[in-house]
């Protein structure tokens, strides 16, 4: 049973025209699959490889390089919350914010809450240093985040 739906396949193949070869669609395809399934399974890797005319090992090699992608043993929750720990944020309480969220959610960085709702991560510089400490909720940035403000953001998810 294939895991990629027809619509996903169409979205992936529609990108071929943008590049002189199909391998360049590897990252876009991985993003698309992870966005939909919250992980990229080995079966999905094989199907992406078939679409891109690559060996599964080539797709897996790329996927495993970027800590961003999760395999089926480590799926993401519904939302992914990143807390910046790099210097500008650390000078303004980034580490403490991360600790507060770990305690509030009962998870360690990289883990997902028991209800499957939130995966908490630490991030290296999110590029919002003027609003340190900052967090990223999926791909939306929030600045000047206190533990209280973070809790409010998480509650509204």
């Amino acid at each position, binding site marked *: 049973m294939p895991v990629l739906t027809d619509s996903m396949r169409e979205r992936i193949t529609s990108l071929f025209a943008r590049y*002189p070869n199909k391998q360049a669609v590897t*990252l876009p395809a991985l993003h698309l699959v992870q966005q939909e399934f919250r992980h990229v399974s080995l079966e999905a890797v094989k199907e992406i490889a078939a679409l891109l005319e690559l060996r599964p090992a080539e797709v897996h090699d790329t996927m495993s390089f970027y*800590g961003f992608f999760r395999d089926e043993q480590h799926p993401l929750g519904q939302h992914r919350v990143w807390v910046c720990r790099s210097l500008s944020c650390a000078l303004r309480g980034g580490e403490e914010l991360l600790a507060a969220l770990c305690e509030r959610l009962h998870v360690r960085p990289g883990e997902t809450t028991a209800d499957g709702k939130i995966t908490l991560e630490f991030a290296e510089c*999110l*590029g919002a*240093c003027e609003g*340190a400490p900052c967090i990223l909720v999926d791909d939306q940035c929030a600045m000047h985040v206190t533990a209280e403000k973070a809790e409010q953001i998480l509650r509204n998810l």
Partner: protein
Amino acid sequence: MPKFKPVLLARVGKPDSALLSTYQRDGGYEALKKALSMPPDDVINVVKESGLRGRGGAGFPTGVKWTFLPKGHPGPIYLAVNADESEPGTFNNRILMEEDPHQILEGIAISCHAIRANTAYIYLRYEYGKSYRVLERAIEECYAAGIFGGNVLGTGFRLDVYLHRGAAAYICGEETGLIESLEGKRAWPRIKPPFPAIEGLFRKPTIVNNIETMACVTHILGRGAAWFKSIGVPADPANPRDAGSYGPKLYCLSGHVNRPGCYELPLGVTARELIEEHGGGVPHGRNVKAVVPGGISMGFLAAHELDIPLDFNGPGKAGCLGLGTAAVIVIDDATSMVDVLYNCCRFFSHESCGQCTPCREGTAWMTKILHRIRSGQGELRDLDLLLEVAGSMGIIPGTTICGLSDGAAWPVKNALQKFRPEFEAYIRERRSTLKPAEMWSAH
């Protein structure tokens, strides 16, 4: 000195600043029209004459880089725009993309005409979700208005611009790492030569330029090379290798300042002016202990070095690696430099791509040694060990393929050169500033 009127940030914060209609109302895409009426080589010459140096960190003269493309190449030639802004402390590209995307897209179109590229890829770090959506819309507007596509502004020039999202890896900001990543591979930097201008993306001649550089190109074509060259710090006539520091620069100010933010100023402003006049000083009545001059990979300025101009030459005179991205991070005197250095080392250890052993192992061991010191278990000889590791990794000693390693070593070298007594006292007193919070994000 009269107050500098922002050019790159002129439209930031204005209503609908990201829309094509308001951009054109403000005179947008006139510079592109002008460029398209010129032969490509003339456009390159204007950029060369302006003295523009790349804003992404290395500061290589942009026009000169463009001339490295092979003459009379049948194509394709590619433009890869580096929007992987990930150097800690840096956020100016993000502001440009979110607030004034057409200023960048116009620079991209001008550059493509100049280098005879028909395809540009914008490699955008994944974390910049808003930038992605704003740029995506702006690109659609350009296609609909005939600015991109098969017949750019009716001139017959064909141009396609595509957005390509990264996947949260700092190394993709290194130009050949970016190319490998765009090709769908792990972002392992390539050995140079061949340089990308000869053999780059998809094995074709490629120019890699930063977002802020593209915005500068728009204004250079619009206002002329002489205008650009009238701003900043002229080349030192006594130094034939100095290419000067011309034009406005987007300085990113963060850390312990009252008004962090992105400030557009002529190249050559000092850290002291930035902190005191623009940043409103250090909070809580504290003083500056150290300043990161251009992203953490450039090292540190000590408190007595704040009057050094932040141009392409200044930080180097104080032993820093360079101007980098001009991201200025202020560290106050209540902060431990041991903690700061640990934070820097942990970053590079996390972001080393693992290809070259001295970098992969060196960054990891420097982090472990600093962790030991911060646990109260350090020994004085650890400081020499840190220096030995830092001194043996990078392009400068000749042991790695790319400069990530030099950037990882520099904060260590600067910290131990400028703040050694603080490190020695920390070790002797068996202090420990490990915070309970940090066990959550331990390396």
